[in-house]
């Protein structure tokens, strides 16, 4: 029997996975803009962005067909399948099955439900108490965000360096069709966190298939709660089953207990790999109603649920305690549209999609310098050639979590994310008594004006009410190592005054050469 279900599953997975990874790795900004919708159907972004419609659809999908989400929509799940498949090829050739194929094991319920519980409780308490830590654990566990970080910090740099190599070869032949790109958006910390995630997920996938999804991933655990009672499911026809155990060797979720003829539906990701492996055709994917959960699994479920509830007070006090972070000391500059640092910290899970699409490479993942809650989340890091483009709103358009809400260019042009602070004693006009004016030159709103100083020289003056904090001035200021003009973040974004428009001065009719 041809396994059409599996073929469909693989085809759909590729339709989700490839556009998404291409969108993450694209440095040319030529990929079509609608691809960011692929990120908007990921469960954690859906929850954080409050997309009720998509959430209900995903829950309904799981209730009807099981954890299809994990096999078809989740890019990290598909990545694991890819890694596992890579090594399966070698395995198939070797004769001794027992050693190399998957085996049934009992679920690590305590672990998976505790992690899920902590994530959920922090999230709920975060919403009510406005804790900075509402998504901190989720950031490290969310499969989509991990996939994003792996793509942005490992795959994308590889693609860019490949391009640079091609460009170098082309340049030797005087061909300017490619262009060099120096990566400024990957920090050591962001690279390491992505590498750790890739290694962890990769090794688990190699050894135990979907072990990550079934013991660590909060999305998997959450959907598992629903897929226990899903209507369509893989069933074993006991009259045909010979208990040969081949199906459990093929199951990458390691959830088929062939001795007991039982399938743990909370862990089954509907990959359908088992279906055609069965020689007696005892496995079927079909409608199964009414649903009966096994008593054993019900017991563990109840136990873990109780544990979850019991841990609520503890976690809530933890969340309460750490709430008071003083943003006035060291505040990150957050993208226009994020409204305020607090909201941004709560909603962002550091998928780095905005970082990969910032044409100015000004968005950079933070380290621990803005506190533990802000780690790996993007902030605007101004340096030579890197500042926030006046006309650009791309990060606000593509953020799947709604951590950066969509704003129009007109709004962005008056959104004050910070204010320029001019330090006259460091300015080259003051120290060297030469013209400069680089900061004024780069200011898109004329908030930095050159005003008379002495001997025909002009020196910058900042009109704070006009400044939007784009960092044009800071990025170009030639003073090193500490610049003479720096942006101080607004913890809560403000609205700047609109630059005044003047009437176009009509040119006098008797205009001549003038020389």
């Amino acid at each position, binding site marked *: 029997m041809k396994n059409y279900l599996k073929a469909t599953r693989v085809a759909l997975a590729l339709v989700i996975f490839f556009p998404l990874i291409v969108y993450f790795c694209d440095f040319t900004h030529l990929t079509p803009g609608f691809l960011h919708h692929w990120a908007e159907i990921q469960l954690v972004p859906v929850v954080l962005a409050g997309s009720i419609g998509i959430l209900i659809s995903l829950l309904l999908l799981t209730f009807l067909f099981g954890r299809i989400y994990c096999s078809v929509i989740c890019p990290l799940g598909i990545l694991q399948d890819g890694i596992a498949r890579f090594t399966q090829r070698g395995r198939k050739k070797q004769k001794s099955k027992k050693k190399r194929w998957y085996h049934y094991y009992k679920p690590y319920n305590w672990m998976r439900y505790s992690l899920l519980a902590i994530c959920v409780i922090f999230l709920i308490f975060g919403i009510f108490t406005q804790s900075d830590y509402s998504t901190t654990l989720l950031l490290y566990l969310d499969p989509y965000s991990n996939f994003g970080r792996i793509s942005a910090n490992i795959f994308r740099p590889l693609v860019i360096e490949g391009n640079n190599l091609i460009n170098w070869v082309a340049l030797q032949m005087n061909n300017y069709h490619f262009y*060099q790109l120096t990566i400024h958006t990957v920090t050591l910390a962001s690279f390491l966190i992505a590498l750790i995630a890739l290694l962890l997920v990769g090794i688990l996938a190699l050894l135990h298939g979907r072990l990550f999804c079934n013991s660590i991933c909060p999305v998997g655990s959450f959907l598992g709660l629903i897929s226990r009672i899903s209507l369509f499911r893989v069933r074993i026809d006991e009259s045909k089953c010979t208990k040969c155990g081949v199906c459990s060797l093929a199951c990458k979720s390691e959830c088929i207990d062939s001795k007991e003829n039982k399938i743990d539906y909370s862990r089954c990701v509907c990959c359908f790999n088992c279906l055609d492996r069965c020689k007696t055709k005892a496995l079927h994917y079909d409608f199964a109603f009414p649903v009966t959960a096994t008593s054993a699994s019900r017991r563990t479920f109840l136990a873990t649920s109780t544990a979850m509830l019991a841990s609520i007070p503890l976690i809530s006090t933890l969340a309460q305690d750490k709430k008071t972070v003083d943003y006035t000391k060291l505040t990150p500059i957050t993208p226009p549209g994020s409204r305020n640092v607090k909201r941004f910290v709560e909603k962002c899970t550091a998928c780095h999609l905005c970082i990969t699409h910032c044409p100015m490479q000004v968005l950079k993942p933070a380290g621990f310098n803005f506190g533990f809650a802000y780690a790996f989340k993007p902030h605007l890091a101004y340096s*030579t050639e890197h500042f926030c483009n006046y006309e650009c709103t791309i990060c606000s358009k593509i953020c799947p979590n709604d951590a950066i809400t969509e704003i129009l260019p007109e709004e962005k042009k008056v959104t004050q994310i910070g204010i320029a602070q001019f330090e006259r004693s460091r300015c080259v006009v003051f120290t060297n008594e*030469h*013209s400069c004016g680089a900061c004024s030159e*780069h200011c898109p709103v004329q908030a930095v004006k050159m005003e008379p100083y002495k001997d025909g020289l002009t020196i910058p003056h900042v009109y704070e009410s006009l400044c939007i904090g784009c960092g044009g001035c800071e990025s*170009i200021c*030639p003073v090193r190592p500490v610049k003479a003009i720096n942006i101080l973040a607004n913890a809560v974004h403000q609205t700047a005054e609109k630059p005044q428009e003047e009437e*176009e001065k009509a040119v006098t009719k008797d205009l001549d050469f003038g020389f």
Partner: protein
Amino acid sequence: MKRREFFKASVAIGVSALTFNKLSAALSSNEIAVEATPDMVAVMGGAPAEMLQRALKEMGGIGKYVKKGQSVVIKPNIGWDKKPDFAANTNPDLVNELVKQCLRAGAKKVTVFDHTCDNWQKCYANSGIKAAVEAAGGNIVPANDESYYKTTTLPQGVKLKSTKIHQALLDADVWFNVPVLKHHGGANMSIAMKNYMGIVWDRPYFHNNDLQQCIADICTWQKKPVLNIVDAYRCMRKNGPQGRSVSDTSLLKAVIISPNIVAVDTAAVGLFNQVEKMDINVVEHIANGEKLKLGTQKLDTLKVKRIKL
């Protein structure tokens, strides 16, 4: 004309040119100007391409500057992510016409670039220059990364002794400096000399080490542009170099061209003064350039041709 005849004619003209300058001009064919070419041509009152055509014709035709098989670089100002109406960048129609003329004169290839201040792809696209160059058959090339630049020495420089210049320009046989006429907050005016800052990588060095002197220093680079073509079709009269809106600009409908960079900047400041006051003495890099013998501010010593269309 056969090759041998051509050589004979050329030698004859060459010899006579050495002794009888005016006679040689008279002997030569119609395509070569009958009278000696002026030092500067200014044209007013037309569309950008039209004014450029006329100005180049008065300067002896493009063939005088671009020879067959040469590789040409055109360096406009494409510094800012602004639409052409802001006059923050060189007029795209002007660039288009110049690319066409160079290719018609037999240039092997015409390359255009600028080290932009805003994101280079946005600048190239929104200035209209990318489309204009490509429509004319030229290449617009990136200048966004240090790897495109090679260190070059400037023996005559006072403050700037060496800097990294774009490879495309280093490889070119001839180049045109094609700035737009602008007010500038730092250098006071941005015209032909200031436009040189777009050929180098490290601009903060300029700002850190006497901007006005460094601008003059970079202009001492041995490979001089064959012509400086100042686009003053629309000029930015204040809030330069970016401008806040179109109301910061004035429509002057002028083009000034000259191989003499100091003279062309001096003339452009004169033109500018009719719409906004600007003391040429505060545009120090012009005087600094004169000190370095890059040209003269005394326009009355030059043969200047002024044409109104």
